Each structure stands twice: as structure tokens, then as C-alpha cells.
């Protein structure tokens, strides 16, 4: 059922997680299409992947926010990839999102509307073909809205639900959908934040988890298993208690 030989499309390939995921797929011998807003910035990464792994790498311009172009973007690729990994996202600044709805909208669009548009289009095409894997990187932040980042959390909650629905819809069509919840990851997005070591993964750890999840046919994964327990507890806290916490 899971295609493991055809090309892999990485959406958001300029991010730390996108780069790490591309590397691991190249190592596994998969051809790659790296999609990012400014693909010329990925020339060096593409050269590196070709040199190290003798793999076929293409670059493609992709703007998650330009939803009107998403169908055409897929047409331009000329090939429907076997595997699509969506790492598109924007943490944003919660305070700014509270003051200015335009900032909040950008967070919602980057994490939910954009990914929903492109993944929805890909899902329909994969459904017609009868094969494929869609891997969406969501977040533990989507499991319960917290004062510190609920706009981002709301968008990720939406993405998690969207991926869950896609999985449900496509389960009989030969298309797999995997939801990845990384927890804290050391990336440019979190640089300068004090992150607890035992709960924080490196981008490469996320990449290995993604490939392992695909190989094992998993549905939902937490990159570090401890997060499953943490989020269970956070979800189980009664609202009367939860609303007074500082998380």
C-alpha cells in the first residue's frame, strides 16, 4: 500500500525540519522535489543531496498562502509524488496576534488554510490514482488552547483535525495520511527559547521519526514518546483547573 520508491515532495523544504527530512529521504534513495517560497535559496542543499546520495533533486517555487495557485503548482510538477511531507508553518508571536488580527490571520493561514488547500488538492489526486502517502507536521500545541500560543494552537488543532478527516476519507482509497506531532524541536523557529532538554528533539530526530512512521504505516506519531503522556495529562485536566494554569 505504501509507495516507497517514487519521488518525495517536501513542502516547506527551507525549514530546518524540511532540510532534515529531505536528507533522510535522499539517504533512503528517494528522489526529491524541494518546494519553498524562494527555491533559489535551496540550490546549495540540492547540490549537497545530489553529491552525497547521487539522488535526483528538483526545486520548485511554492507559496502556501497562494491557495489559488495550488492546483497549477501540482500541474507544473508534471508528476504526482508518491509521498508528500508538509512542514509548512509559522509560530508567529502570540502578543502580536492578540493586538493585530492581520498577524493572527497570517498564523492561521500559514498553519491551516495553506496546508489544507494544498493537501486537499493532493489528496483528491492521490485518491484518483489510488496510492500515496501524505505526511502532515502538526503540533502538540493543537491539543489544547493555551494562553501562551492559542492562535498557533488553534491553527494546528485545525490541521490535526483536517489530517484526521483526510485519513478517514482515504483509508479505503490506498492513500495513507500520517500526523506528526514533534513537541519541542531545536529549529530556527525556537532559537533563543529555553527548551527542556529531555522534551526537545533535533530536526534529524523528527526526520527519522517521519521515515519510520511511513515504513511502519503509523497514523499519528509523537516524535518523543513522552509527549503522548504529557498531552494526555494536559487534555485530561478539568477546565476549571486548566484555565488557571500557566502553561
Amino acid at each position, binding site marked *: 500500500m505504501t509507495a516507497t520508491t517514487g519521488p518525495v515532495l517536501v513542502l516547506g523544504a527551507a525549514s530546518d525540519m524540511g532540510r532534515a527530512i529531505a536528507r533522510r529521504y535522499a539517504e533512503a534513495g528517494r528522489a526529491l522535489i524541494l518546494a519553498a517560497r524562494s527555491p533559489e535559496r535551496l540550490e546549495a542543499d540540492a547540490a549537497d543531496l545530489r553529491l*552525497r546520495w547521487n539522488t535526483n533533486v528538483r526545486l520548485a517555487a511554492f507559496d502556501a498562502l497562494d491557495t489559488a495557485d495550488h492546483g497549477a503548482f501540482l500541474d507544473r510538477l508534471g508528476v504526482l509524488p508518491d509521498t508528500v511531507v508538509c512542514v509548512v508553518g509559522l509560530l508567529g508571536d502570540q502578543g502580536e496576534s492578540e493586538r493585530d488580527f492581520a498577524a493572527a490571520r497570517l498564523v492561521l493561514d500559514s498553519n491551516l488554510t495553506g496546508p489544507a488547500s494544498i493537501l486537499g488538492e493532493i489528496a483528491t489526486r492521490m485518491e484518483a490514482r489510488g496510492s500515496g502517502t501524505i505526511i502532515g507536521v502538526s503540533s502538540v500545541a493543537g491539543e489544547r488552547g493555551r494562553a501562551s500560543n492559542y492562535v498557533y494552537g488553534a491553527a494546528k488543532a485545525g490541521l490535526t483535525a483536517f489530517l484526521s478527516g483526510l485519513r478517514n476519507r482515504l483509508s479505503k482509497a490506498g492513500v495513507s495520511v500520517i500526523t506528526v506531532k514533534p513537541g519541542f524541536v531545536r529549529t530556527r523557529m525556537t532559537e533563543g527559547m529555553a527548551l527542556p532538554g529531555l522534551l526537545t528533539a533535533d530536526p534529524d530526530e523528527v526526520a527519522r521519526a517521519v521515515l519510520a512512521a511511513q515504513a511502519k504505516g503509523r497514523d499519528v506519531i509523537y516524535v518523543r514518546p513522552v509527549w503522548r503522556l504529557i498531552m494526555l495529562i494536559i487534555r485530561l485536566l478539568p477546565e476549571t483547573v486548566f484555565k488557571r494554569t500557566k502553561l
Partner: protein
Amino acid sequence: MKLSGWGRFPRVESRLALARTQDDAVRAVTGGRTLIARGNGRAYGDAAVNPHATVSMLGMGRMLAFDPADGALTCEAGVLLKDILDVFVPRGWFPPVTPGTKMVTVGGMIAADVHGKNHHIAGSFGDHVLSLDLLLADGRVVTCGPDRDPELFAATRGGMGLTGVILRATFRLIPVETGYIRQETLRAENLDVIMAMFEESADWTYSVAWIDCLARGPRMGRSLLFRGEHARVDELPVPVRSAPLDVRLRHARTIPLDFPAFALNHWSVGAFNELYWRMGTPRETLIDYDRFFYPLDSLLEWNRIYGRPGFTQYQCVLPASVSAAGLRALLTAIGSAGNASFLAVLKLFGRQDGVMSFPMEGYTLALDFPASSATFGLLLDLDAIVADHGGRLYLAKDARMGAGLLRRGYPALDGFQALRAARGLDRVFRSVQSERLAI
């Protein structure tokens, strides 16, 4: 966060930033603070630490181009030597010069102008660099090399990052038929014998000796000499000949915890040395490149065997004409101090021209000691012997020498300083080491 070199001494609170792209590095350089670039942190002391800003180049780890016609590889400064070996040995290429660990970056190898077991034949790593891109204090990036701004290039080789941030480099790999080394082991009863053996081994591509620093009297300087050549396909056993470049690498083990500080002492090291000497029966063997060049890399975090206080490496070189007397004086001082050096390595360097490059024609001795007050007392005695004989210490290993010894050992230092000042590099590129040594 606390940063240190591989010796875990000293540890300095500093700000570490990761450069993923050239733009990141430019931002760090023009940020109004002094800084130093850092590779994989394998310099032993404080060379790649700056409390204000230390820029990790590990995010710039991309290989960019390779020309199979002449073996020229272009890559970013943060590429690990291990990655180069993993990718290129199976294709029949080998680094022209390699230090005793593969866990170093290309930028670090140039900044320390590292040498290997083939120094007497191949020179140092910088001798094989065709060009490099250097980020200067004002945010400009310039390309330099042996025939393009050669003064800046010469100062950058061995310049410990004090002339700018090395962003990319092009250097030539050498072709090999196999991933194996034909190794000969020879036993030398004392210092005179090992020195004669080195001189007789001038035609061998690789040569290095383990020396027993605790042996005294007529056995002082007893050593095992290892010399090697890249094996040809017809020298391999028949079953291996069909895949001569396919070397199965060992899985690295991690030292699970810090050893207690007393684990390595005069007696345990003495016992080890005796055993090692006895096991070093003269023989010829065929071993894979990993075992020959990187025996310690299979023990990840081996620096923890010295426990929490950390350790310090001491590597000096003495001019050829006075090497015999100088080595005798060093070994006498070490033997009578009773400090245990677990790893002691002797090697004969060939000729080397350079500004801040460490090698010079003569013998180099590398030792490591636990960081302790007794050690630092002994090292001061060794400093005096090195200075008296016109030798010098290796900056990539140093964590504690004084500015006077540096000045005596590196006569081109004034020129190096003048170049840094003239180009405005001295205001920005500084490390704990450069401050200590008043560079």
C-alpha cells in the same frame, strides 16, 4: 551556555549561535560584538570559544561540488571529515591529509592547519586547499587561495579563525584503490632507535609512533612505530578484492559516564604501557582506514575518561637539529614528574612554510594529561624546555600556555598581527585563547 573544547577545560559561559547560511554568519559578524567561529569543538582548549559570541558552523554542512577529473571538492566549512570519508571512500577518494579524528570540520581543519601521519610527504591540510571563501569583519566575503590574496590565505591557514569566518573551501582529494592500509609495526627499544627508524621511513606515506613516556634509563623513549601505505587491490585478500572500497565501519560506543578522576594514574597508565608495548609485536597487517587513522573515534566522548576536571593536551615540535636533546629533556622531565600521559604520540614532520601553521621540520610529541595543578606545574617545565630548543606548541591543543612562549615559538606572529590590524580583523575575531595569548 557553558562552552569548552574537547579537553573540557576550561569551560566558559558564552553565547552560541548556529549559522545555517552565509546570511546568518554575516549577521553574527556585523552584530557589534567580538566573535569566533567554531566547528565541531575538537580543538582541545579555548580556541573556539568567545563569551560574547561563538558561531557554530555546523549548520553550514553542505557539499557543493566535486570534480572527478582532479578530485577537487568544494564544500561549506561545517562539513565533517567523517561525512567526506563516508561519501568519497566508496568512490575511490581519500582526504589528502587527515588528523587523528574524523569528527572535525573542514573549516576547523583549515583554521588549525591540521597535519596527519603523512606530514613528511604531503604537508599540512592547507597545502591542499585551492581556495576558500572568508567572511571579513565588515561583512564582505572574499575568495583567497595560494594565488589569490595569498597573504590573507597564508594567515588564515593555522590562523585559528582570527582572520575571519571560513565559509567554504575547495581542496583536492587523492585517489585510492582500496579503503585499506597496509600497516607495518616496528618495535624501537629506545629514543635513538625510534629516531633512526623514522628517518629510514621517509619513503613511507604514513608514519607515527606511540611512545612510552614512563620508560626510563636505557629504555627511555621506547616506542612502537606504525607505518602505512594505501593498499592496492592486488594486495588485498582475494575475497575482499571484488569490493575493495567497501569498508565495514565499526559501530562507535559511547563512554557511558565520567570516569572518576583517579582512574588514570601513574600505575594504571604504566601497566597499560607495559601491556601495549608487549603486544606490539613487529608484524605487517592489512587494516581498514578507520582503524588506522581514527582508533579513538570508535569511543565517542572518550574525553570523559579524564572525569569532570577535564584534561589538557600538550603538543610541541622541536627543530630537527635539536630534536634528540630536546626529546630527551622532555622525557626526563615527564618520567620524573610521575604524571601519567595516557596517549603519547611521536612523529617526524617534514618541511613546512607558514605564518601560524604549527608544523616545522623536526619531531613533534603529543601528550595528554588530566587537568590538575600538578599537571600545570609539569607543563611549565616542559614549556621551558620547548622554548630553550626553539620549539613551539600547537594552538589547536593549547589551553594554558603564556603569551611569551607563543611569541618565541611563532616568529611570524608580528606579521600576522599587522595583517589583522591593517584589515580591521583584530577588532572582531577574538577567542578566549587569543585574549589569553594577547594575539
